[in-house]
């Protein structure tokens, strides 16, 4: 028993400790590795960048891109104002109303009455709907923004790409008109070891809902056509002030009398011809000799019958402005570049349109027959 214990006691006291050997080897290896790494650096400390230099280089790249982005944002603000003004002035149509125009006013309703249509009044209506309002504003905005970006690119080393998803999104925001431009191409800035790309998208707005204004104006305009003067003025007076809009209560209500004449078909007319009431044959020549001449009406078929239809043409050109108590004139104003005057002027935001309709008087129409000799039967 005693013999067994001794060997056991010997192992536990002086037994070979593998763990300690491993730790020792690992420790020496780590120290050697660290020391060699310290002295054998490929990139000497003196040649490395200073504290934060890489980070500042990145920030500098961001700052360069920020210049371009700031210009895009500022340009979008100016472009929205210019676009809103043009949109109102053009009667909410980019290339002119399909119903025609009269001076500065685009027709939203325009009756025509022409002889070729038998003088039947034809009503043409071009009231712009909300999608048209947004499209018009977006189109004006596109070309205005393009001008701004082009002027920047002409002098800047950083080029702003003008490649946006079309059309620009006119977002519904209460009391504001917001346009969102999503760029498809980024602004690229290349610096040593850095290539930074950022898309010049934007979201800008003006403090007036011009789309909502357009919808309100069109709704009232639809009711105007066909109204008597007194009723039309009452309608405009009732709309005045609603939604911050200042309707021109002193608008011109013009009535012009006119008429339309059209051909309705042929009619019989008579022609006076010479006849012989009395005569006889010449015994010598055998020819008939008239002794007594007379005249007679002979019907001829060369006349055309016309009908003349009198009618009244009514015209209401209308201008609606936007109230703004902070403005010098009481109406919202924008700085706008006047192409004709070649300068920037302060102009009031104005929505302009016109409606026209006719009222004919068929009971007052008259017919007449016109023949070649002018002789009715």
């Amino acid at each position: 028993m005693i013999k067994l214990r001794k060997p056991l006691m010997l192992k536990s006291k002086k037994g070979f400790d593998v763990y300690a050997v491993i730790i020792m080897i690992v420790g020496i290896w780590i120290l050697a590795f660290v020391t060699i790494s310290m002295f054998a650096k490929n990139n000497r400390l003196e040649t490395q960048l200073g504290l934060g230099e890489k980070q500042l280089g990145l920030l500098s790249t961001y700052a360069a891109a920020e210049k371009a982005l700031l210009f895009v944002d500022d340009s979008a603000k100016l472009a929205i104002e210019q676009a809103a003004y043009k949109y109102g002035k053009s009667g909410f149509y980019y290339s002119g109303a399909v119903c025609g125009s009269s001076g500065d006013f685009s027709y939203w309703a325009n009756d025509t009455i022409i002889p070729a249509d038998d003088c039947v009044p034809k009503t043409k209506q071009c009231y712009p709907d909300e999608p048209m309002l947004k499209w018009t504003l977006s189109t004006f905005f596109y070309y205005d923004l393009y001008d701004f970006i082009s002027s920047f690119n002409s002098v800047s080393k950083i080029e702003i790409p003008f490649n946006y998803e079309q059309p620009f999104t006119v977002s519904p925001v209460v009391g504001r008109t917001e346009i969102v431009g999503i760029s498809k191409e980024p602004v690229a800035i290349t610096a040593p070891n850095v290539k930074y790309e950022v898309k010049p998208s934007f979201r800008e707005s003006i403090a007036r809902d011009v789309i909502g204004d357009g919808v309100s104006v069109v709704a009232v305009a639809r009711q105007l056509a066909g109204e008597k003067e007194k009723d039309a003025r009452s309608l405009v007076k009732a709309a005045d002030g609603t939604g911050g809009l200042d309707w021109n209560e002193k608008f011109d209500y013009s009535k012009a009398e006119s008429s339309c004449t059209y051909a309705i078909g042929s009619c019989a007319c008579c022609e006076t011809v010479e006849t012989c009431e009395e005569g006889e044959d010449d015994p010598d020549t055998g020819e008939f000799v008239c002794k007594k001449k007379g005249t007679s009406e002979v019907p001829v078929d060369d006349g055309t019958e016309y009908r003349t239809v009198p009618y009244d043409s009514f015209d209401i050109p209308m201008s609606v402005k936007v109230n703004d108590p902070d403005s010098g004139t009481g109406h919202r104003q924008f700085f706008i570049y006047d192409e004709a005057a070649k300068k920037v002027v302060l102009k009031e935001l104005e929505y302009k349109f016109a409606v026209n309709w006719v009222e004919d008087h068929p009971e007052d129409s008259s017919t007449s027959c016109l023949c070649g000799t002018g002789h009715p039967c």
Partner: protein
Amino acid sequence: MKREKMLFKRGKNGQFGLEKIFSYIIYGLAVMVFIVLVNLPGCILDKGQLKAVIESDATLKAEVKAEAQLNSYLRAQMPDKALLFERLDWLKNKKKEGYVFAGQFDEGKVKRVKEFTDGNPEAYVGKDYSGFISSLQAIYAVSNNDGKNRIKEAFELVTAAMFFRSARDKTQKIGHVLYALPIAVDFDPKDLKPSRTDYSLCTLEKDFKEFEVCSDNRPYELFYAKFWQAVQAVPLHDGGFAKVELRYYPEPLSWLPKP
């Protein structure tokens, strides 16, 4: 007896071998401390290497700061009429205390600027500072000489009222100084390069194009101090652009609080 012996043997080698474990831990700590000491600058690094490790380029920092400052100025919302007038009056009153704005905010000038802003709300209401600059250019382009001077004054004082700074300055009787960084605008630039870097931004110098509008309210300490110039383009209503330049002056040492 047997039981006691066995227990004694365990006790000799340490309960659960803790002595051994702690000795290994201490050994590991010593290794780590050595590694840390070796990596500390100054232990084996010389002065040149030390400098390379901790130095930084102040120029690049200041350039970035100048650009960021100008961008933030241009995006700043213009105050409404009440707040703007309040600031103008506040700075005018400071004139009496001998502040650096003493030469700019006299009674007559402040009155004219108020009249201008009152008569031209479209120039600043609802706009940011870059929109204000665009609007000023539109008014400037159609003004006579008197109108142009009014616009210059308006720009100078409104800019100071929006962006004035306060710095501790023990040389001043009141203990601090009010100032504003110089900003100048060229309404008809040919390029986007800094226009001048060796003269005062707003001083008329021979052969230099005068800025249409300029605001410079620096204290004496910054007259000859080093600066960094930032440039930004601002779109104008006529489709062109204006060049806005800002000079950024880091605060001098005398203004910084002592440790």
